[in-house]
């Protein structure tokens, strides 16, 4: 899929060969992996400041030296959007940050976001050659974040593209389109949902010369990046800059508009949209359907995080209220559970507990979030599963009954499945429970769009290569196709769908900016 020829030629550029020779491999592998500076746990567990402070310039330079610039770059295979990892890292090493940022932006719409929230240990960093040498992987995520942040702080992001001094492949395209009023020749494209899948799709399509309108049901753009992931992990300001970049590319955002409700499928057709990308996500929270789950004080992590992040209920001046539990249990072991439990701690919980039915090893959360949660005083109750919540006489939760579990045989997915230990239950006092046991696809589009093929689980079925649904003009990607997955996979889907839709539309319409197609040809 990746443009191997281009990557090989970049690797053989003179500066890069020189850089490789400037240090012995042994010297590079002997450098210890950088430690990200962080706020102290006792300080940060009482505020919503970003925990990871970002690498210093010295640290980033040092870490970039660790990368061996492997000829086959195995790390790239671990990245869902195949960022040219060695190229961006070697540009950091030679001190050319604009080039590093440009490399990132060639394949990723939101590098400052992904550098922060990707589970790198399961993706790019899991393939790093250093692991074979029994060393810690190169900190690719930290470096990605460093380059994207430096770019943003130095004003090199194409917020004002005409000021961008480094005009490369991508910038040509951006310059051509940015700030332009839409003209009648442009083919209109609709995007349903402004989460990572929709944003990444919108960015690519705008660069290709389409007139893109993104429809969002909520009053803020960004999907889970805004309502879900808290400020201490992903500041909203970082997301807003990326959204502003898309606006500069000509993308129009329409908030408070629910496709399927405010506008129907036929409304979109009448409005002249020639292609629709559905990135409506998996926003439907799962509950366990156990006794007491509807007691007051028991809520989904979606509700909890939406109140705190999107509605800013943590602030005194906000009208939206939120429970301030003192003994808070969060049920689940994913990133959403970690976010919820760390929010609870920051809102003053004396005891913030994770209740997870498997052992820590099986937890799907990022290792770093688990580590941070522990440092912040979160209590981990592994191999426990709630079976009932008990309320007081006002209907408020006061305790949970936990079933003790043990690990049995591996299930179909290879994970050892939790089995209840008969008779082993414990009752623990709690005054708030946050249920974080996964999400299901948003049913709105599948139920409102006639003729979409949908799986038993409610995901939209697409052609795996093109992400086209069985409605020819409708493409879909991200969690609405995958169920609850990751930001970077959603972004990868957005890119893939953009390339495929462009290919389809090119044959149907005279596209005004075909010269811009070089952005994608070769890459896909």
């Amino acid at each position, binding site marked *: 899929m990746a443009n191997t020829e281009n990557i090989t030629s970049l690797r053989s550029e003179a500066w890069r060969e020189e850089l490789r020779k400037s240090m012995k491999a042994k010297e590079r592998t002997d450098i210890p992996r950088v430690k990200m500076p962080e706020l102290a746990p006792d300080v940060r567990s009482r505020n919503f400041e970003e925990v990871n402070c970002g690498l210093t310039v010295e640290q980033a330079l040092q870490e970039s030296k660790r990368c061996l610039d492997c000829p086959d770059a195995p790390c790239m295979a671990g990245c869902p959007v195949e960022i040219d990892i060695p190229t961006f890292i070697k540009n950091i090493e030679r001190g050319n940050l604009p080039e590093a940022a440009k490399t990132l932006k060639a394949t990723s719409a939101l590098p400052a976001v992904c550098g922060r929230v990707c589970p790198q240990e399961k993706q790019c960093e899991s393939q790093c050659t250093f692991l074979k040498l029994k060393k810690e992987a190169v900190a690719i995520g930290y470096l990605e974040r460093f380059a994207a942040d430096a770019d943003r702080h130095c004003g090199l992001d194409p917020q004002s593209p005409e000021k961008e001094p480094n005009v490369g492949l991508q910038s040509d395209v951006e310059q051509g389109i940015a700030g332009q009023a839409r003209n009648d020749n442009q083919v209109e494209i609709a995007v349903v949902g402004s989460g990572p899948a929709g944003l990444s799709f919108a960015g690519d399509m705008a660069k290709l010369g389409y007139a893109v309108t993104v429809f969002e*049901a*909520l*009053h803020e753009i960004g999907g889970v990046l805004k309502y879900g992931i808290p400020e201490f992990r992903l500041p909203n300001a970082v997301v807003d800059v990326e959204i502003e970049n898309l606006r500069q590319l000509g993308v129009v955002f329409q*908030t*408070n*508009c*629910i496709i399927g*409700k*405010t*506008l*129907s499928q036929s409304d979109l057709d009448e409005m002249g949209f020639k292609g629709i990308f559905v990135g409506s996500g998996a*926003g*439907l*929270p799962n*509950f366990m*359907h156990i006794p007491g*789950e*509807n007691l*007051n*004080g028991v*809520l*989904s992590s*979606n*509700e909890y995080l*939406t*109140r705190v992040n999107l*509605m*800013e209920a943590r*602030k005194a*001046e*906000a*009208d*939206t*209220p939120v429970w301030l539990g003192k003994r808070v249990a969060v049920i689940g072991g994913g990133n959403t559970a970690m976010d919820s439990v760390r929010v609870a701690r920051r809102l003053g919980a004396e005891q913030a507990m994770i209740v997870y039915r498997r052992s820590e090893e099986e937890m799907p959360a990022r290792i770093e979030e688990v580590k941070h949660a522990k440092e912040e005083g979160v209590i981990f109750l592994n191999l426990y599963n709630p079976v009932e919540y008990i309320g007081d006489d*006002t*209907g408020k939760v006061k305790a949970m009954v936990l079933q003790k579990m043990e690990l049995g045989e591996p299930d179909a997915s290879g994970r050892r499945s939790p089995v209840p230990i008969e008779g082993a239950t414990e009752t623990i006092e709690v005054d708030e429970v946050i249920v974080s046991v996964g999400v299901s696809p*948003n*049913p*709105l589009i599948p139920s409102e769009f006639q003729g979409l093929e949908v799986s038993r689980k409610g995901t939209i079925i697409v052609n795996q290569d093109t992400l086209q649904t069985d409605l020819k003009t409708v493409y879909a990607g991200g969690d609405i196709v995958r169920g609850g997955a990751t930001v970077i996979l959603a972004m990868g889907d957005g890119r893939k769908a953009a390339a495929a839709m462009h290919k389809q539309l090119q044959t149907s319409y005279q596209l005004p900016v075909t010269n811009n197609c070089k952005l994608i040809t070769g890459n896909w």
Partner: protein
Amino acid sequence: MNKILKKDALSENIVQLEVEAPLIAKARKAGHFVILRVGAQGERIPLTIAKADAQRGTITLIIQQVGVSTRHICALNVGDELTDLVGPLGKATHIEKFGTVVCACGGVGTAPMLPIAEAMHKAGNKVVTVLAARNKDLIILEREMRQFSDEVIVMTDDGSYGQKGLVTNGVEAVIQREKVDLCVTIGPPVMMKFVSLLTQKYNVPTVASLNTIMVDGTGMCGACRISVGGQTKFVCVDGPEFDAHQVDFDEMISRSKAYN
């Protein structure tokens, strides 16, 4: 975008706003609601669409001042804009020719009942409306409801207008005198509970439009969840109307006090 074109006081604490919202006005049906937000720090609150004019591109919202957000909304004036307005949300009312339909509404619950009575009336039903409130001043939309009703029975707790008594007294009188094919009830949860208990006794199918706490209104959080026939349902996407005889009203009443 969502400018207020008209503002009327319906009673001391109840305000009627006509708001510019062309897309919602065009798409909405009886039973639908909207979520709105006033001010940068505002919360999202649900309100039923009382009337809509697709030609003018407007919807009418009726708001009783009960807390911070409704106070902010009621303080808005003609020319002001709502910060955010999204809809239409929820499932539309199931409308068909049932026969005789009793619309039992209490207080500001008359506002969401208005489009339902209208649609039931247009579908050829005989509509008997029971309008109930604590006192005369809190009876709203009587003239509008009369337009779509074959009969209107007014009940007040203190007897200051119409008959003295509760909504259930009015409904029971109708059931005792003629065959009722459907009862629709909207009002405070306690009122709907007692209407439901009454109609259950007489085996009259009953629909209640529920007004729970909501955040997004699109099914992504479950703040509005209730138990219906032992199953958890989200009022914003599965409702707001449910078979009243299946609803766990005690749980709903308890959940509605969550943030009090």
